[in-house]
């Protein structure tokens, strides 16, 4: 799954002409917005929810990440939701309706190419964008908390465009 995401991010960057950061396009990685082909399109299919894995507790974090997808990705210095991100969040909303007692925290994250304090704020914008979308789909705001880790908790360690794309994310974490 993770490998598939990385591959698709790489493909997306190639399709976008491997844009390099311009003068102002350096704060949070490359400006690469591909309609309908966001980094989080990786291998999740179109079904509202994936097949149930008998080894995974329903309503758990593992259930969310394996059947639904627990994270969405963002463009450089962006906090608007891509088409792919919305598809993932549609599934998250369905999953949250399926488990009405589950409360979650949306964790906003950034890549390492911005300044520390700006990225705290940018991560919070991303978490807020996800929460707002889920609330608009009818999930009570009281079930959704938000936080930001800025650039402090990257998902992958690399110092390249693909790693940065994977680190610009909002992760839905079961409380």
């Amino acid at each position: 799954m993770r490998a598939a995401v990385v591959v698709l991010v790489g493909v997306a960057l190639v399709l976008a002409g491997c844009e390099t950061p311009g003068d102002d396009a350096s704060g949070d990685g490359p400006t690469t917005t591909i309609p309908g082909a966001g980094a989080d399109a990786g291998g999740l299919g179109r079904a509202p929810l994936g097949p149930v894995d008998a080894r995974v507790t329903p309503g758990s974090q593992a259930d969310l990440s394996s059947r639904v997808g627990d994270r969405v990705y963002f463009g450089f210095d962006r906090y608007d939701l891509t088409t792919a991100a919305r598809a993932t969040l549609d599934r998250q909303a369905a999953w949250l309706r399926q488990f009405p007692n589950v409360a979650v925290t949306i964790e906003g994250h950034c890549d390492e190419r911005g300044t520390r304090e700006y990225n705290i704020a940018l991560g919070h914008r991303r978490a807020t964008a996800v929460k707002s979308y889920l609330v608009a789909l009818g999930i009570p705001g009281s079930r959704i908390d938000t936080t930001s880790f800025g650039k402090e908790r990257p998902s992958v360690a690399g110092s390249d465009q693909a790693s940065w794309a994977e680190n610009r994310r909002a992760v839905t974490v079961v409380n």
Partner: protein
Amino acid sequence: MTPSPISAPRCDRRPRRPAAPSSPPSRSRRCHGLADPVAPIAVALITVALVTVGLVRPVAAELRIDVTRGQAEPVPIAITGLAGAPPSAPAVGRRLAEVISADLESSGLFAPLPPARFPPEAGSRPDTPRFGDWVALRQQALVTGQVSGEPDGRLKVAFRLWDVFAEQQLTGLAYYTRPNNWRRVAHIIADAVYARLTGEPGYFDSRIVYIAESGPPTNRVKRLAIMDQDGHNHRYLTDGRTLVLTPRFSPTAQEITYLSFLTNKPRAYLFNIDTGRQEVLGDFPGITFAPRFSPDGNKVIMSLATGTHTNIYTLDLRTRVIVQLTDSPAIDTSPSYAPDGDRIAFESDRGGTQQIYVMAADGASVRRISFGDGRYASPVWSPRGDLIAFTRIHRGRFSIGVIRPDGTGERILAESFHVEGPTWAPNGRMLMFFRETPIDGGLRRRARLYVIDLEGRREREVVTPMDASDPAWSPLIP
């Protein structure tokens, strides 16, 4: 007998934060050093006395160093080992001289003579040096001194600074302190020499608080750590279980405001160095970050993020009153007061990208001052008030620079894959920052602290036990 032109004793330093009427006498008012943070009950560490001697003869042209000069050569100075060997600290005379030399050399303004080149019996006559010996070695300034043990167990450290050509004492002071506090006395002497020869305050008797880092990038362990400005007396203030970021000293250097993820959310906290006590700052409806003290120490200014907006607020530490200073849908953060407290620099992306703005302390009269290429972030106002340091991101590279508060005179001092977090020496003549470099094919990072002069000419690493980021330089220790 003409009195020596001695710089003001340290006890004359103006306290920066008036003590509340009910509180015990402020330590900064006394002629004593800040207590060693490891031993908070220790007081009366240092007392000062003046050392006066008769002048040999008046001088025509006084030895004077211009700290703003460009390419000039560092001034040759000989710092002899301080004579005397008290039983409680037999080698302290030589070690004092080593620390004084290292401090002065690190400023880039002085070139201390290697002890191997000293004339025979150098320093053995601290009150009547043989100036001819030092003239022959082309030295312009000379430091001599004596160490002795007092009956009460304290050390007495006396030094004299001489103008070699004029054969004149420029300053002389004596300090009384506990033997294990000798490094601090060395820094105070280095400051006295620096101040006497440059006419500006020194910065060596100061500390650095920073973030000590270890572990992989995906699960970095970050701890608050504190050390003297030369890297000695290092210790950790937190245990690494909680992610902490962006510490800043209070004007008395006794408290630190910083960011902690104790509750899994970024919140601004206060840390008392003497007691180790930590407290969250304010009851805000969102995440708070980028905290710094006001120059009088009575307020903390910080960012509050609510939804997609981030604005700047102050919290009065005495009344707990919260005041909102900016109100925009943008990210307004990294506030920094001017030293007089009248203005605030901050960054905002209200114009599309991060840029630096200056506003009045009440939030009025907002004006953008950065107009160069790229993004301008994290402004830090100099203690002298004349410059604002910043972090710039341009074409995927980070740099550290300075700009005048009116937006003119921008200069870039250091540029790398990642440099960030400038902080000013207490006299506003040097900057410290951190540099992070990808290693092992980008899978790990090396992070270190560096000091650079304002011409960007001379950069040196501040040695830390492990990776280091987010440095904050204290004021001179009261």
